[in-house]
């Protein structure tokens, strides 16, 4: 059983929703990211999503766009992110998932990347702009290396397609809560609970919800019906607001703990 699968089966046994914080690797630099991930793990994160920066992140709102720009200006590359995972892996037992865009992963070569990612202990990969129709070779390479290719679904996904996505995804299904880009929203999208329960009817696969979830109240709400809640932009905002790494680690740690309390 992979690290992601066993994490969700533990959480389901305890009847708890997983807290999944997201941050962009290399924002503002990789050593700070390492400290931030360790702090998130310590503060109660159940699984951690590490964004691989890309020059043209079409699914991101302004917050994560800016963090990608900061990460790229600090010279962050995919190889650097793999080194980061290599440093983190012996120190924490939470599953580590990379989230990024096709061109960055494919530039390294499908098999090369999958083998390198396995070597350092990556547990899953989410590729925002690689639907299963296009991702065959990449996803097969990941699966051969025992890494979960995690697929996304959205409110516009038709039922027949949803059946295909839950069949093909590994580890969990990432449900995009709204039609839009990443970033904090005042309200949780209408119909979210119903959408998740529809997926439950056709599959056992854990369903994690992301995009637009930023407060402890929203996390608690999502926690009532989903297997995981992803919080990204709210954390990235804290990193952006802190002028030095020390305060960033402190405020991120405090906020993750608050989010985790909302799920207990």
């Amino acid at each position, binding site marked *: 059983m992979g690290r992601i699968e066993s994490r969700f089966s533990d959480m389901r046994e305890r009847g708890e929703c997983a807290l999944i914080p997201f941050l962009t690797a290399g924002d503002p630099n990789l050593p700070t990211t390492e400290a931030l991930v360790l702090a998130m793990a310590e503060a109660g994160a159940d699984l951690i999503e590490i964004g691989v920066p*890309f*020059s*043209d*992140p*079409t*699914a*991101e*709102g*302004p917050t994560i*766009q800016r963090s990608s*720009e900061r990460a*790229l200006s600090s010279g962050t*590359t*995919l*190889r650097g992110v793999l080194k980061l995972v290599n440093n983190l892996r012996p120190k924490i037992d939470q599953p580590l998932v990379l989230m990024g*865009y*096709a*061109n*960055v*992963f*494919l*530039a*390294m070569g499908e098999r090369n990347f999958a083998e390198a990612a396995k070597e350092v202990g990556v547990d899953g990969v989410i590729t*925002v*702009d*690689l*639907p299963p*129709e*296009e991702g065959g070779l990449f996803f097969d390479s990941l699966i051969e290396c025992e890494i979960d290719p995690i*697929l*996304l*679904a*959205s*409110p*516009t*996904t*038709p039922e027949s*397609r949803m059946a295909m*996505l839950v069949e093909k995804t590994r580890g969990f299904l990432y449900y*995009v809560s709204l*039609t*839009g*880009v990443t970033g904090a929203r005042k309200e949780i999208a209408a119909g979210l609970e119903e959408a998740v329960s529809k997926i439950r009817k056709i599959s056992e696969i854990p369903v994690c919800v992301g995009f637009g979830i930023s407060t402890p109240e929203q996390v608690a709400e999502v926690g009532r019906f989903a297997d995981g809640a992803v919080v990204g932009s709210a954390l990235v905002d804290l990193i952006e607001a802190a002028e030095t790494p020390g305060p960033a680690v402190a405020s991120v740690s405090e906020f993750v703990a608050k989010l985790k309390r909302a799920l207990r």
Partner: protein
Amino acid sequence: MADLPGRYGEYGGRYVPEVLIAALQELEEAYPKISQSSEFRTELEDLLATYAGRPTALTFARRMTDDLGGAKVYLKREDLAHTGAHKVNNVLGQCLLARYMGKRRVIAETGAGQHGVATATACALLDLDCEVYMGEEDIERQALNVFKMELLGARVRPVSSGSKTLKDAINEAMRDWVTHIRNTYYCIGSVMGPHPYPMMVRDFQRVIGIEARQQMLDVEGRLPDVLVACVGGGSNAMGLFHPFIEDDDVQMIGVEAAGEGLETGRHGAALSAGTAGVLHGMCSLVLSDDDGQIFEAHSVSAGLDYPGVGPEHAYLRDIGRATYVTADDDSAIDSFVYLSRMEGIIPALESAHAIAHARILAPTLSRDAIMLINLSGRGDKDAPQVRDILAARHSESH
């Protein structure tokens, strides 16, 4: 040409976030149904004839031919189409499609503003809401086009992310589309993006090649030996080339922007210097570094200033059906002046790249050979920029 729908060899496809998949499928289903209906075809043909000014002329470039001393040179005059470029063929098709699909809101990206002005024009004509994304840098450089779009009733949305140019405007338009997917039509400006856009835009631009083919037969009684067109995203070139693809004896040459020179890295030549990659929803040749980050393109001509290219061009290059060469900023400027003086036609800086290559190629061909150049747009929009460049050159030489 492709093995699978939306595939051109290894290129093409649909590399988009999941939210967009359903919309692209809706478009893929609606497009053939609507575009093949006699109602749509009649309406589009009528607009092309009575509004856009088609067919555009085929002009024999007599003085240029004499001066170059080789092939007979003909110009397909897309500069004479309404809004001054071939862009209008595509936007009339797509905006009419949007209306048939019941989408009342149209968004578009624009670099220099040509596609934005064309889309704003079609939306005014067809009574659609129009928003155009444009990089902040481009807004500053192309203030007149911003005014034109607003005059035509469109809203111009400044884009401040990334390099603040065309590629970022496309990113932002895609973000808008993701957000307003249910009521919005995204009118892409070239033969790029996710399937079915490269196919659709090609189909709407094919009118260039279909007309030119018949005009050549009428005037010369035979097909041309070589076609020359500039390539940024590649829509004017694809529109000219595609109806000639089965004519094996017709050579097809696309001219990309070498900018300050391929060796400087400051260019827009994805076919000549790019690698296979994924950008803006398609797999194609792109300007990308070893780590998969996209470069900023560079060209004196804003319309060629794009770090990718339509996937079908990448395919035509790979199978050897078309060849792709480059012309740099200086030679484009020289050819801008050259065509103005020789033929009394001020070409768009984009089209001046095609002229630049033609000036090299034509003298090497026999006097019986026929060369057909797509003059994709007129150069009024570029006149102030070229004036400044020529003034700077002049002061340097003194």
